């Protein structure tokens, strides 16, 4: 069993090993929906929410699979659980809070293909986190994803006004910006060595 303290797991997943900028998970939505600040905030919110729900569920599934000695089904079980979670969450939100549903819009179904969700589930299994640790890890990771997305979209909104050479427009310049951002986040690495 992993014995890292909860606050360390939180800071680690939020800043030091930021999901997007250090572990490279969820790059597709990171590059895809970071064009506008508003959409980025919504996507971030949706991801935090789904991540929390799915990591709780996958924790239970993993225990169940270990109990029945069927660990080889892990990948299949996880992906099915995540896909159906997204679907359930979508229906639930639609029923209980139409306003939130409208705000999240298309981003909710898109999350199924976000590798960050499956990644968080796999990482918590790999590192053998306890239930509380998994919860903290998933909240930290979700917040970290939202943070990176919001910062990136802020930069890209400014970048639209800048005079970028034609060849570098689009993905290439976004990757360069992400690289610099990731370098900035490396500064947090010092927080980890105590």
């Amino acid at each position, binding site marked *: 069993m992993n014995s890292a303290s909860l606050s360390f797991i939180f800071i680690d997943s939020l800043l030091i090993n930021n999901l997007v*900028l*250090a*572990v*490279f*998970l*969820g*790059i*597709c939505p990171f*590059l895809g929906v970071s064009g506008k600040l508003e959409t980025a905030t919504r996507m971030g919110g949706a991801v935090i929410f789904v991540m929390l729900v799915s990591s709780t569920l996958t924790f239970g599934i993993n225990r169940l699979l270990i109990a029945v000695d069927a660990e*080889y*089904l*892990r*990948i*299949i079980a*996880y*992906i*099915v659980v995540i*896909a159906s979670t997204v679907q359930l969450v979508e229906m639930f939100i639609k029923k209980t809070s139409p306003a939130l549903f409208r705000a999240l819009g298309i981003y909710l179904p898109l999350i199924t*293909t*976000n*590798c960050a969700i*499956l*990644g968080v589930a*796999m*990482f918590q299994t*790999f590192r053998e986190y306890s239930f509380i640790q998994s919860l903290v890890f998933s909240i930290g990771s979700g917040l970290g994803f939202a943070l990176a997305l919001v910062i990136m979209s802020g930069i890209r909104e400014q970048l639209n006004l800048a005079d970028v050479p*034609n*060849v*570098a427009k689009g*993905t*290439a*310049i*976004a*990757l*360069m910006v*992400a*690289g*610099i951002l*990731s*370098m900035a986040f*490396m500064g947090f690495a010092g927080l980890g060595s105590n």
Partner: protein
Amino acid sequence: MSKAGPSQASIFLNGLWKENPVFVQVLGMCPVLAVTNSVRNAIAMGLSTMFVLVMSSTLVSLVRNIVPKQVRIATYILIISTFVTIVDYVIKAVSIPVYKALGPFIALIVVNCIILGRAEAFASKNSVYRSILDAFGMGIGFSFALLCLGAVREILGAGTFLGVPLFGPYFEPWIIFLLPSGGFFTLGAWLLAFSLWKERRTRKATLAAEHAQELAS
């Protein structure tokens, strides 16, 4: 796609170059950035992805007329995750260091958009033979891109290629290339190089066309 579709060679070459999944379509970025800090990891990841791509394309193409339209995506995901599980266990059996280095990213092949994308866009509409060709093309294109990144990052970041030192003892490795930000920079630079090359080619083509027009008039 009609009977008079593209020839076999062009299906194969399509993924390799013209529609290279990484450099042109910019798909499947997560593994591209995450595991390319050494050539060995890049090759392992490229081969695993290619295996999953070829096998799942074959199976998807085989069952394309049996599976009802409503549940096709779920079926594809099940097929893909089955093969990913196989790869996961094979790598664990063959090489523990590679397994440790790739870690959870093997499982993440499931959500690699290239595989589901090819299943949906090509294998579900084409014969088995053509789907295999397409999957091989895409897989080799993907591995090639991984290799491009892995080579640059390992040579500059560690001064080695496949673990063999390339430079003398006075070489100071650029650690930044092994770190996450180096991945972003390298991929950005490759994309830049590609679009530069493409722009020059189109400019040359238009110049040649103008020149031909001038000569004709």
